[in-house]
């Protein structure tokens, strides 16, 4: 009884000193020791949270293209079911899909940027970031590179002074103080050659142009009505030289370049067409289609040249397309097909060295290029064998000099031809012996 009383007393004292937590801890420790239960924080021992529930959720998110959330849920399922072999496989596969999709959208975004299609580029970078939230490249484009800059960079040339740079850039040498201010140059300090300066871009209101911009705009609009597009272009470019942000002048430039480009397209002057269309803003309605049409015409021309086996001309035409659109697959296909066909013709003519020269200019990733190169080596081996056998025939007819010549040809085509090497040596020693006998 006294023992029981002592336990009660201990519990009461514990309660007064440590509160509920202490008592609970004390009792809990005793209970745990008695039952010897494993730690409840070990995931493998809980039955309350089935892995299959989280896996199902993950698959649902995956279906809805919310791949990062799907990955979160899959990782949870994997932790809850560490013995599963399927879940780690699924996680690996999902990670690979995420990487692939992020890379694909990022590349497309960069391509759109190159074409100055910034809205489309932004969409692609946002999608990249949705798949891969830590994608530094996409984030850099979204946060920095897609925003218009307040500065232009200028590399200082030898003997450049701030006044020279100011005159060149702002058409006003008195704005040299502005360059000094933004580049932390002290009064009277000149920039060092090779330094990159940041020059803030100023609107037209801060440059006093030697032309009357409103007047020039009216002039350009009147010229446009008369369809004198070359002159419209000259005037609008002159305005933009002094006021880079003038929207009306930009619009006039776009219209005139587009119209000149269409005329050049009718005259089939492809490089000039592309130069003109490149000046048009990519957002200008119809310009993308016009570029596509002009390119298609050139591709058609190149295809006909290929049929006529005029390979050098194919290279010239398709090469020009690639000058303006580096990723144009049809032009690349035409060039590589031309290389393959040239290579095959040279194989028929047994001009293997030239065939390999031609094929070395082609893209080795193309199947036809790989195959033609392999055909050249096969043909060389086959031809080496023909020369070898000819050599044997000459040898049997005791025509040692001719035999050696044939075997040498065989070796030139196939330096690994062991028999030819041995036979040449034998024939030469025979010849030497015969010389001595004579």
């Amino acid at each position, binding site marked *: 009884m006294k023992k029981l009383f002592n336990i009660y007393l201990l519990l009461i004292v514990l309660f007064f000193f440590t509160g509920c937590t202490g008592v*609970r801890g004390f009792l809990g420790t005793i209970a745990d020791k008695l039952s010897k239960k494993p730690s409840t924080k070990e995931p493998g021992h809980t039955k309350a949270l089935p892995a299959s529930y989280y896996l199902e959720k993950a698959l649902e998110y995956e279906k*809805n293209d919310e791949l990062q959330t799907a990955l979160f849920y899959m990782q*949870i399922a994997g932790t809850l079911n560490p013995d599963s072999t399927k879940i780690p496989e699924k996680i690996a596969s999902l990670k690979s899909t995420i990487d692939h999709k992020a890379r694909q959208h990022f590349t497309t975004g960069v391509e759109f940027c190159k074409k100055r299609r910034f809205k489309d580029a932004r969409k692609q970078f946002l999608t990249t970031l949705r798949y891969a*939230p830590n994608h530094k490249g996409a984030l850099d484009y979204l946060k920095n590179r897609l925003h218009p800059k307040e500065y232009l960079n200028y590399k200082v040339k030898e003997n450049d002074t701030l006044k020279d740079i100011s005159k060149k850039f702002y058409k006003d040498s008195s704005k040299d103080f502005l360059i000094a*201010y*933004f580049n932390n140059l002290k009064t009277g300090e000149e920039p060092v050659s090779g330094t990159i300066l940041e020059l803030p871009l100023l609107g037209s209101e801060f440059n006093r142009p030697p032309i009357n911009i409103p007047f020039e705009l009216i002039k350009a609009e009147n010229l446009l009505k008369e369809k004198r597009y070359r002159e419209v272009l000259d005037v609008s470019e002159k305005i933009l030289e002094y006021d880079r942000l003038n929207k009306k002048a930009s619009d006039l430039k776009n219209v005139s370049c587009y119209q000149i480009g269409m005329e050049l397209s009718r005259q089939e002057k492809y490089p000039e067409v592309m130069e003109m269309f490149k000046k048009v803003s990519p957002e200008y309605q119809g310009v993308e289609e016009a570029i596509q049409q002009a390119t298609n015409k050139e591709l058609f021309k190149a295809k006909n040249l290929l049929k006529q086996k005029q390979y050098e001309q194919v290279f010239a035409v398709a090469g020009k397309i690639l000058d303006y659109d580096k990723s144009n697959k049809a032009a690349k296909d035409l060039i590589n097909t031309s290389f393959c066909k040239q290579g095959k013709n040279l194989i028929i003519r047994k001009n293997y060295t030239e065939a390999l020269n031609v094929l070395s200019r082609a893209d080795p990733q193309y199947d036809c290029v790989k195959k033609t190169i392999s055909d050249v080596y096969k043909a060389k081996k086959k031809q080496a064998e023909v020369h070898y056998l000819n050599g044997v025939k000459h040898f049997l007819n005791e025509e040692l000099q001719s035999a050696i010549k044939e075997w040498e040809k065989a070796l030139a085509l196939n330096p690994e031809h062991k028999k030819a090497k041995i036979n040449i040596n034998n024939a030469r020693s025979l010849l030497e012996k015969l010389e001595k006998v004579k």
Partner: protein
Amino acid sequence: MQRSANRMKTIYGLIFLLSLLLLSACATDTRSHHEISEIRINDDFIIVTTTAKDTPSSLAAEYLNDPSKEWVISEFNHIKTLTPGQKLIIPLFPFNKSGLKPGGYQTVPVLAYYSFSENKPNKVSITQGNFKAQMKYLKENNYHVITLDQLLDFLDYKEQIPEKSVVITFDDGWSSAYDFAFPILKEYGFPATFFIYTDFIGGGKAMSWKQIKELSEAGFDIQCQTKTHRNLATLKKKESFKEYFNSLEMEISYPKKLIEKKLNKECKCLAYPYGLTNNLVIAMLKKHGYRAAFTVDKKSNPFFIDKYKISEVTKVT
């Protein structure tokens, strides 16, 4: 002896009863029930099974050390209320910093208020009643009014914010904003930012520095709206470029230093007077260490907006 033994039995019985009563108070505990069903996943998540006593706030306090982060739990699990026995995932990291979803992205509106009038609103003023109704609307419709720092962290792609986030700002420094808006903001517990142009402060209808200090000490953000509220984007009549440049330098550098000296807090943002700016102004803001600036527009702000062209939604009446 028998009587003494009986008395002892009664005393032991009473002590037993008393101890049972005391210990019964320890029968439940707010933390203990989670420990038996709590699972940590790679330090990124915790899975818990909820009890009747849990709320998103109590769980946020327990696991995220901040009861106001209850939205993290609600948004990740797509829930509005809790039911006992529910399995919840508590993410321990910002799981969607940009607010991107398959169909779009999160944007944050910045509400701009100016002055207050007692009865009739005009172009730039709002009545106290209308303002209160708007705050009530935000509260009842589960909007989260976030601080300027939270907005900047979101725009810097550092921190996640609640899906329905909104920022409240007051331009100019009118004393009516102190008189009418301050009590309502305190009542609702909403943070806000006051953009002041320093030459106005202490004038007839403007707040005094004492009032501004009070706002700052109450946790409200005080930022800059230049010195004189001149249009920063264009030259004044007969103003030379050099004069304009010197004026910009003064408008941008002076109030920042003054606010920081008076309040001993960083002044890092500027609201453009009339919402107008240009490249030169932005370049100068960057040179003087401003982290962001606000224009006036009716657009809401995604994380990728130019931080020197954050849109304020104006004409809130």
